[in-house]
């Protein structure tokens, strides 16, 4: 009994399609077989261009490919909690220490710091400009000038909230239509600020790379309270057995080693250094 020609032909086509698709995906999987680790980091760090500089150096030194998934700090830590990353590299010290305390991370290491700036319309209607972040924020709140906040659980957002509090401003009470919560990353928030001539707190790295400035310029900078420290944490293999412990540890070790620190320092935008390495002297790896 013969299989009807059309049925036979269609089955062959279907099998060919399945084979082609599988071959394609296998090829990608094979490419992945050279060791790689997944690093959960933040959008601001990626958008600063740091990883394009630093990751090739890491690969050359260790042969390991570091794949960065860039989200907000909160999401990055959640990724670590779920075990979807091997290493987290974010900038919210309090959240990172909580992460370790809860058992999701092995140990936090200081890596580098950059700084935040307050940007706003060049004309500065609220008269916020200067070197004092508290004074600047007070002026903005008093003038009820439009302010764009990330409001997205990010390290930047956490820092912003801390600065409002330190300036003595109770956002829940004083928040009004002037305070715009975009719920998005640094870039989109800057796009929004640029579009509505609003003030915003931004990390210097994203700002230097940002092309859509409109009327905005840096108004407040240099306050030491605006420094923004980064930490790197290996996701705890005790919680997630599949975590690439050795390779992940190599990343942590390298990033705080003299070689890694030098790579970080050499990243510049328009000749300006963005990140300042500050790892403590290198310690033996945690077992």
């Amino acid at each position: 009994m013969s299989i009807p020609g059309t049925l036979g032909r269609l089955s062959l086509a279907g099998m060919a399609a399945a084979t082609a698709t599988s071959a394609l995906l296998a090829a990608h999987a094979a490419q992945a077989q050279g060791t790689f680790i997944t690093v959960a980091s933040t959008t601001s760090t990626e958008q600063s261009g740091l990883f394009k500089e630093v990751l090739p150096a890491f690969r050359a030194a260790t042969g390991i490919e570091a794949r960065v998934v860039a989200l907000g700090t909160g999401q990055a830590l959640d990724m670590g909690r779920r075990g979807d990353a091997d290493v987290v590299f974010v900038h919210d010290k309090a959240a990172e220490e909580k992460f370790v305390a809860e058992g999701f991370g092995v140990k936090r290491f200081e890596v580098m710091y950059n700084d935040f700036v307050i940007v706003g319309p060049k004309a500065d209607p609220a008269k916020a400009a200067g070197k004092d972040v508290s004074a600047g924020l007070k002026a903005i709140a008093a003038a009820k000038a439009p302010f764009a906040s990330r409001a997205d659980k990010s390290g930047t957002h956490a820092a912003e909230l801390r600065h409002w509090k330190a300036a003595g401003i109770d956002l829940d009470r004083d928040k009004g239509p002037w305070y715009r919560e975009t719920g998005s990353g640094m870039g989109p928030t800057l796009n929004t600020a640029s579009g509505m001539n609003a003030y915003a707190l931004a990390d210097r790295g994203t700002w230097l790379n940002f092309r859509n400035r409109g009327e905005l310029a840096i108004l407040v900078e240099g306050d030491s309270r605006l420094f923004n420290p980064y930490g790197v944490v290996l996701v705890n293999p005790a919680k997630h057995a599949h975590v690439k412990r050795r390779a992940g540890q190599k990343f942590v070790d390298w990033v705080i080693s003299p070689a890694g620190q030098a790579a970080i320092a050499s990243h510049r935008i328009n000749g300006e250094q963005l990140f300042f390495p500050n790892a403590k002297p290198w310690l033996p790896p945690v077992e």
Partner: protein
Amino acid sequence: MAERRPFLLEARGLSVVLGGVTAIDRLDLTLQPGRRTVVLGANGAGKSVLLRTLHGLIAPTAGTVAWGVPVKQAMVFQRPVMLHRTALANIGYALAVNGIGEPDRTRLASDALARVGLSTIADRPARVLSGGEQQRLALARAWALKPGILFLDEPTASLDPGATAEIERVIASIAAEGTRIVMTTHNLGQARRLADEIAFLDAGRATELTPADRFFEEPRSPEATRFLEGELPWK
């Protein structure tokens, strides 16, 4: 009353209700082997529905359709339905779904095309053929299956006289080989030419089953008489 003889196809108390309309109404009809039956009747009498029900395309609402001898069936419709393939491939498809493999399939399909005089257009897409050619192709396709009975529902209604004559020739040829023919038509001349018995339908019932030459001289039922005299109103 003659005693029961072995029949080919018998409908008893057959009723078919479609969309609230009773198309076939407690119809009784017995068809013997080896004849050429033409079903006549006014529009709406139920001829098409009857053929489709006998062929198994429509399920009866009540009553039975019984086959005295199981035979392979085929049907040709008023408008031929062809797949987007060549003429030869359309016949090949019908053979394939009926379990005929290569190399017989191509040979039988080519033979069928030759019988209806379409060998020259074997590789043409079936759908670009003329109406008459497509209907001949449909007949070739049905004939290739070597059916024991062939139903035809107004096979020449959409064709011009030349094509009609061609089709009638093929039907006669198929009948001559022993295939039972059951056909409907509006064309009384065609019925005279092809039939050896007439089944007359009126309002979903079979009023008579009469040898053709007798029917046209002296039909048995008053409804058929009125029909032949052209006095039957449209339904």
